[in-house]
């Protein structure tokens, strides 16, 4: 009853598939399959197994939702539950795929990873709770709000991760960079799309579904292009590591220098001319 109320009232029910939208859906599923083939051909399943699982999940999601629409009808409660349930699985898989990219980019550097994983997860959790708190109080939109909060959390996590990669000038392969950019752009568009739907609801439900598929299609094109161009690097060099004693020595020296510079600036900023 609750879900029926939701689907008929405020939530985009993923219903009524007009021809154009069906065509875009079919194209996106086809592109998912192409991406899957590229991933297998380039042997990226070895280095990015979670991303492969994510792509597999999206293919299965398309198949499951299409089947439910066919057998239960697009406006049935069962179809609605299957559609949103599979969406939860898809978002979870996306989260793991993003975490895999972050781990691959940062975990090779123990000190950096030790710091950044804590910051990134705190940032992600903060954005998640803030999004939920800032969302509208309409209880029938709780699923949509949760979806938007998770999307925003993923986008913030990726921006944070790329910030650290840039700040520390860490090497990141082009395929990983593009996968991360694709995830982030898709999440940002989902946030906008969900917010626009929340404001206007049923009159734009069809457009909402259409834009969602179109955005995902663009992301798939970006990923497929990145994976197609991927060339395996000829053996990455091992990271240099120093002993804790040596690290402590240099670390102390660096911190003192930075402290010195900050003291300088502090004095410059805080000092006031008593005569003025």
């Amino acid at each position, binding site marked *: 009853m609750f879900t029926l109320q939701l689907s008929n009232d405020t939530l985009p029910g993923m219903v009524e598939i007009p021809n154009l939208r069906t065509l875009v859906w079919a194209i996106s599923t086809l592109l998912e399959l192409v991406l899957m083939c590229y991933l297998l051909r380039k042997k990226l399943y070895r280095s990015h197994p979670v991303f492969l699982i994510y792509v597999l999940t999206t293919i299965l999601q398309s198949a499951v939702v299409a089947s439910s629409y066919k057998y239960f009808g697009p406006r049935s409660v069962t179809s609605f539950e299957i559609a949103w349930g599979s969406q939860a699985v898809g978002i979870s898989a996306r989260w793991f795929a993003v975490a895999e990219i972050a781990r691959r980019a940062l975990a090779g*550097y*123990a*000190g*950096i990873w*030790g*710091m950044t994983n804590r*910051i990134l997860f705190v940032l992600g959790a903060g954005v998640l709770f803030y999004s939920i708190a*800032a969302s*509208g109080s309409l209880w029938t939109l709780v699923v949509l709000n949760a979806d*938007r909060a998770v999307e*925003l959390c993923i*986008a913030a996590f*990726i*921006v944070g991760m*790329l910030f650290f990669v*840039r*700040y*520390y*000038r860490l090497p990141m392969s082009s395929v990983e960079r593009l996968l*991360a*950019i694709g995830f982030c*752009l898709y999440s*940002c568009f989902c*946030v*906008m799309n*969900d*917010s*626009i739907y*929340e*404001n206007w609801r049923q009159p734009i439900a069809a457009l909402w579904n259409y834009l969602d598929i179109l955005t995902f299609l663009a992301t798939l094109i970006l990923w497929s292009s990145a994976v197609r161009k991927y060339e395996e690097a000829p053996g990455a060099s091992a*990271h*240099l*590591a*120093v*002993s*804790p004693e040596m*690290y402590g020595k*240099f*670390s102390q*020296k*660096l*911190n003192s*220098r*930075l*402290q*010195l*510079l*900050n*003291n*300088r*600036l*502090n*004095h*410059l*900023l805080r*000092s*006031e*001319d008593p*005569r*003025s």
Partner: protein
Amino acid sequence: MNMVLLLFVSLAIVLMLMLAWVARPPKRVLLSVDQVFETLSEERHYARLPQILQSLRHDDTDFLIGSGHDELAVRLRGERKRIALRYLNYLEEEYQLLLEASRILAKIAPEITPMEEFERFRRNARFVLSCRYLRLRLHLGLQPWEVFGSISDMEGDLTLWLEAATARIGEQAATASEFPLFLEKGHRSSE
């Protein structure tokens, strides 16, 4: 259009702009590990800093204005602003070197050091923000010498080690500018 829509659309746009900024390819690494550690073991000197700070005080420009040399006072203040910016440039150069060293050290850091890294990251961020703020003040002409003015009074607060480490930058700033010559000319014309 309600506030929630506006808030989330704005957040998404801000995130996309930030993505465009962070996804740019990083700048070329300028120093090797050895170069950075070698530079870190060198001493830096700011021996002329007190003189620079003294020269940035109000006294002589007030005197010039009082004696009717307004144009000269304006020129002098312009020169002082230039010197202050130059000094800030040297501080930033030093900072860039330390930042490069921080990056290299972070890459080779063992597993036990997340707090060390966090502390250094915090200091880096603080320096960048302070530096930008000070530079903005200088560019906006917010009488930076008033801010700089009492720095020399604070010299005693800094330890000898800090002085030794910063002395070279001050010396470079003093040597590179034509400030002493200009001051000398200013004093002559006021006489």
